[in-house]
């Protein structure tokens, strides 16, 4: 889907579905081996080595990814229930798919997911880009502070999410205390996790806290990839700082930013651990994002066939959206 080329500072290159590997300078340089030498060192045994090297990986992926995927597709046409493995399995055609696509609860779930996706990406892009831009002012010690800012991103979302429930406690939680400190509201007057209107925001806050550094790091790489001479030329042409920002900085960082959004989009569409720990989908089902909904269907109601169809629909959705997005990304990149 995407890959980079060269080892220069922060370069990146996106590829369409078919990845054009031979286009990278490294590969070209590598292929320039004289033919005589190449024949001596390549030959048949190399092909054997290649397959011996790649084989185990392919085998593992076939066994643990592809075979299960095919199994899921198969199950999605049945009424199989995993808690009753001995019951006769009936093939019911597309009925599971029909049921899912016409189920209004699923659309509510999609809305919860969309709310979560939109606002997390919005805040992360806004704060992440601003931070990157500030760090790129190259003040003293910026490396140290960058490293500190990045820490939350690498931690276990389940463990961290679990701890945030403590910070969100209505009476004793630090979060409520800080809000009280600045606004004067009574710390027990609002429940971040328990109230229908605040719960969706409580997960947005934690996700933003965790993943803003991710967007920041990618934007920073984008900013650092802009050569100084472009700004110098613009300054000589008397372009104002503001104009430089919108005609140089923004367009040149955009592909990086879009890449960050792609990653965050895919990850947050799959989001499970953080939300399970924070709200568990509640109160009611206001924060029941797709993964949680799917888990309920598959592992609590044990509607395995139905859940399989659901999983396939989600996979096709992510895959489809990501492919369209990558096309758009390539267009921006080519400009």
């Amino acid at each position, binding site marked *: *889907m995407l*890959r980079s080329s060269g080892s220069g500072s*922060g370069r*990146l290159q996106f590829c369409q579905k078919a*990845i054009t590997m031979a286009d990278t300078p490294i590969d070209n340089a590598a292929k320039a081996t004289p033919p005589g*030498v190449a024949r001596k*060192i390549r030959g048949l*045994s190399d092909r054997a*080595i*290649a397959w*011996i*090297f*790649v084989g*185990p990986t*392919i085998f*593992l*992926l076939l*066994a*643990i*990814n592809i*075979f*299960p*995927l095919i*199994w*899921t597709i198969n199950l999605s046409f049945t009424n199989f229930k*995993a808690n009753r493995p001995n019951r006769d399995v009936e093939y019911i055609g597309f009925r599971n798919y029909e049921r899912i696509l016409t189920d209004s609860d699923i659309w509510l779930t999609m809305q919860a997911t969309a709310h979560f996706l939109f606002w997390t990406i919005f805040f992360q892009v806004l704060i992440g880009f601003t931070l990157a831009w*500030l760090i790129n002012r190259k*003040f003293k010690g910026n490396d140290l502070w*960058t*490293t*500190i*800012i990045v820490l*939350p991103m*690498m*931690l*276990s979302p*389940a*463990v961290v999410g*679990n*701890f945030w429930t*403590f910070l969100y406690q209505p009476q*004793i*939680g630090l979060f409520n*205390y800080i809000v009280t400190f600045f606004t004067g509201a009574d710390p027990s007057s609002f429940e971040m996790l328990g109230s229908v209107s605040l719960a969706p925001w409580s997960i947005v806050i934690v996700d933003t*806290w965790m993943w803003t550094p991710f967007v920041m*790091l*990618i934007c920073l*790489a984008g900013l650092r990839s802009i050569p*100084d001479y472009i*700004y110098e030329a613009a*300054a000589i042409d008397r372009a104002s700082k503001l104009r430089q920002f919108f005609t140089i900085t923004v367009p040149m960082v955009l592909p990086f930013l879009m*890449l960050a959004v792609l990653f965050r989009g895919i990850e947050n569409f799959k989001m*499970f651990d953080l939300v399970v*720990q924070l709200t568990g989908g509640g109160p009611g089902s206001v924060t029941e994002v797709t993964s949680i909904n799917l888990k309920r269907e*598959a592992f609590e109601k044990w509607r*395995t066939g139905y859940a*399989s169809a659901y*999983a396939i629909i989600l*996979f096709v959705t992510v*895959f489809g959206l990501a492919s369209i997005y990558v096309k758009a990304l390539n267009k921006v990149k080519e400009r």
Partner: protein
Amino acid sequence: MSGYSITEPSNRQKWVAGTLVILYAVITMIPLAWISITGFKSPADSISYPPKVIFEPSLEGYVNLFTTRTRVSKEDLETLPPPANFAEEIVRERGMVIVGPSKFGERFLNSVIIGFGSTFLSIVLGTLAAYAFSRFRIPLADDLLFFILSTRMMPPIAVAIPIFLMYRKLGLSDTHLGMILLYTAVNISLAVWLLKGFIDEIPREYEEAALIDGYTRFQAFYKVVLPQAATGIASTAIFCLIFAWNEYAFAVLLTSGTAQTAPPFIPTIIGIGGLDWPAVAAGATIFLLPVMVFTILLRKHLLRGITFGAVRK
């Protein structure tokens, strides 16, 4: 930078930018700092209002994390021999005795075994595959690489349904081997993509020189390429380890006892001994600390790792 540059920010700009960034860093660290200090509070201090920043440090959270305790009557308590160590002393003060170790140690050990096991496997398989993709012409290489990556786009729950059924049939549910294989399968995409990038950067001429000197392909691979790729392999390994370490969705669905890792266990601590937040915080601290250390060690390759090698710094 020498001389005057129009692209160099002014000192005032730097000062303002630095202040804002440091402010953000401090805010972002508050939750983490709060986790680590809560671990050293007594349960009463941890839920006091207003939240206590200054308190009398106590190891009760850590003691509670590692032990199971039971309440005994005062008379029984007095008949016991004096406490043998500080842990017993803390527990006795609460009118309880230690009856044994808690499950935390076991769960933590499971995390270590599964984390290192799957990392080792992903790195071995990933290095071999990455070398082949980097150096040989493999038919359909592009499609294969894309296929390897696309496996990462599935929601884990979707993958977990058939895995759950398959593992139940094969007897792999709740086993270390099952989890190691599963995490290896998830991590291998990251390993192959990252390592291919690192190996691509090693000039092919080195190996060719070695081959001409009479090395076989295998010798050239492990005597020339592997040492050159050591940094890349190490940082890829850390990324794989962190993923396996943090993973929750598969762990919570596919393990329940013998192979349960720490992430699904830590949140359950709160239910075991009442609202024992210091014990949760102690568990979280012990669990998160190694990742923080690794992140600091990795900072140069961080961007590359989190973007599957798409962005290199």
